[in-house]
């Protein structure tokens, strides 16, 4: 039996075990949903085919499909102490923090204060007990599992996760942070982080989603975040991933934007064995707009794939993508996806930029910005660059006494910090800045004005 097939069977077995031992309510609709998702996964299989597989053309899924991952049925979220994650994870006492350990909500680590707000930010498992109608109305509506094996698998194993519901007109006073931690295990595990965000009309919030690891082993994070921005809602979203260097991470983000709503999303990715940052935004009404930024730092044999799909379905929609990458070692990065401007989407504006610095001979970037435009009256631009640090700039700095290494380090940091400087949450920005210092092959610059 081929390896991939064997592993497929092990997901089946895990699924059956999950169904037998359901942890919460019987909710028949949820059982049916999981079952449908599992059927989808069965039919689709992992996208390992190399031919005719546009979406996964530059990332080999085979290592994920062929590896054996255990479902952490016996996870013990309480094993992790606050002191274990201090200094490792982004954290601020002032935030509302929801923490998940190996896929399970940890009440001990979470600080779900949501001060002064009627927002709901709770574990999905708890939400199913108290907010079942809301969950049923939205869950799996924006992240479609019918044509995506990873979303299907995540949905089939849906147990816990975060539900965030911001009532209409409400502004969250503090950022909401959802942290997913993978701990050390004997054998590689798979976890299925899940977030459902419903931002009511004219609500505003800041959502931080982060993934960290307390292990340096291999494991698989298969996450799905689905968002609905109702009319006039404004979502500021950050996604931070620093997994174990041997980890596989497939992160699916699906956003549905109603009239005049705004999604600003920034990802900061520290590379690992395979990391896919897969975002799809549907701009489904006039005035909907999205700004997508990202920074990825890769080294060693990391593989990072940013796949961004933007659908301008209606007139007067806007999208602006800005990605930057710093590649070292023998790492590889991919920037792919497409911007689709449909026939009736007049006055749509779409911009896409992907800039990369390559620090070594062995690193490689595949950047394929793609615009598909079926409407005349639009404005669309795209551009991509990949290159080494310019000698011209290095010479300027060296002529002031900086040695080559230091000059290069300052330039690379300057290049990367543009994305970090745009982070609107102070404590997150300084955390990311420290991550940048650690991840880049640079000296620590001193305090500056």
């Amino acid at each position, binding site marked *: 039996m081929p390896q991939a097939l064997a592993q497929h069977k092990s997901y089946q077995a895990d699924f059956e075990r999950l169904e037998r031992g359901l942890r919460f309510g019987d909710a028949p609709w949820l059982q049916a949903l999981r079952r449908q998702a599992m059927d989808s996964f069965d039919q689709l299989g992992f996208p390992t085919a190399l031919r005719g597989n546009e979406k996964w053309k530059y990332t080999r899924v085979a290592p994920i499909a062929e590896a054996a991952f255990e479902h952490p049925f016996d996870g013990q979220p309480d094993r992790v102490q606050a002191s274990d994650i201090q200094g490792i994870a982004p954290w601020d006492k002032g935030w509302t923090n929801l923490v998940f350990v190996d896929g399970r909500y940890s009440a001990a680590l979470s600080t779900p204060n949501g001060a002064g707000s009627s927002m709901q930010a709770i574990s999905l498992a708890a939400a199913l007990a108290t907010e079942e109608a809301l969950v049923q109305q939205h869950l799996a509506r924006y992240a479609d599992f019918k044509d995506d094996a990873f979303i299907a698998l995540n949905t089939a194993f849906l147990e816990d996760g975060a539900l965030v519901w911001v009532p209409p007109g409400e502004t969250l006073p503090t950022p909401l942070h959802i942290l997913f931690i993978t701990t050390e295990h004997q054998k590689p595990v798979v976890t299925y982080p899940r977030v459902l965000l419903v931002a009511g009309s004219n609500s505003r919030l800041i959502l931080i989603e982060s993934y960290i690891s307390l292990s340096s082993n291999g494991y698989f994070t298969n996450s799905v975040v689905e968002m609905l921005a109702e009319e006039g809602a404004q979502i500021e979203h950050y996604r931070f991933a620093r997994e174990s260097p041997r980890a596989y991470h497939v992160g699916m983000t699906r956003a549905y934007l109603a009239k005049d709503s705004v999604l600003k999303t920034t990802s900061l990715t520290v590379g690992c064995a395979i990391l896919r940052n897969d975002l799809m935004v549907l701009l489904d009404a006039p005035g909907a707009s999205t700004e997508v930024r990202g920074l990825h730092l890769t080294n060693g044999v990391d593989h990072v794939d940013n796949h961004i799909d933007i659908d301008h379905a209606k007139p007067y929609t806007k999208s602006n993508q800005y990605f930057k990458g710093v590649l070292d070692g023998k790492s590889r990065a991919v920037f792919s996806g497409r911007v689709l401007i449909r026939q009736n989407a007049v006055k749509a504006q779409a911009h896409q930029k992907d800039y990369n610095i390559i620090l070594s001979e062995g690193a490689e970037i595949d950047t394929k910005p793609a615009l598909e435009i079926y409407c005349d009256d639009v404005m669309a631009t795209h551009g991509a660059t990949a290159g080494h640090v310019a000698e011209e700039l290095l010479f300027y700095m060296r002529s002031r006494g900086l040695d*080559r290494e230091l000059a290069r380090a300052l330039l690379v940091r300057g*290049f990367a910090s543009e994305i970090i400087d745009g982070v609107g949450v102070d404590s997150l920005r300084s955390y990311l800045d420290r991550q940048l210092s650690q991840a880049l092959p640079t000296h620590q*610059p001193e305090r500056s004005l």
Partner: protein
Amino acid sequence: MSHHNGDTRPPMLQIANLHVAIGDVEILKGVDLAVRLGEVHAIMGPNGSGKSTLVNVLAGRPGYTVTQGEVLYEGMDLLRMLPEERARAGVFLAFQYPVELPGVRNWQFIKTAVDSIRRHKGLKELSVREFDRLLQDKVRTMEFDPELIKRAVNEGFSGGEKKRNETIQLLMLDPKLALLDETDSGLDIDALRTVASAVNTRRSSSNATILVTHYQRILNYVTPDHVHILIDGRLVMFGGPALALEVEAKGYDWLRQAAETTG
């Protein structure tokens, strides 16, 4: 005029028969020049004559091939030194076209430069406070917009702001040999005066300056010890400040002809 008359010490900079090519094209065709401590030399010449090539080669810019000749700087073989080694030994080039350094903050950059050079001299790094006091002083001297110190180096600066920024770096690094490549170009008259007074203030018996310029304008404020005319890769004439006035009045053609007849 030449206050080194009778000075028997070797020049701080001695350029001998310097030939420089870019690719297969020879740009400098045998330049000889001696610069002594305390001197200011002006180099003038038509566009494309090789003025920038000369100062760039002295600063160690990549892309040039020295095909013949040598350069001694304080007894060292300058051309064998890395650009940063030259900077640490006191050579400074103010660029004709300063580059932009995206995301590298000006304050940080100048501090790093000052510290790199201090470390080399065995001095300890300046504290943030000490450095900032010195820098603010130069910022005021140069009438530089203090906001620009917080921004990325030269990014989005106007032409004149870039030149002022070069001058601030000149003052902060206080080099022994300053090579100023058209630092006066693109400056308004006030800025020109401040740049000129910066050059005058730092003028001392322990340093020297080579000033590349197109305009005699700056020489109204900075009186050079020598004026050299570079045409087609050769220094075809030298003289005192009066030569600059003559060039301004008559252009370069008469010098070109003179150069052709002599050789």
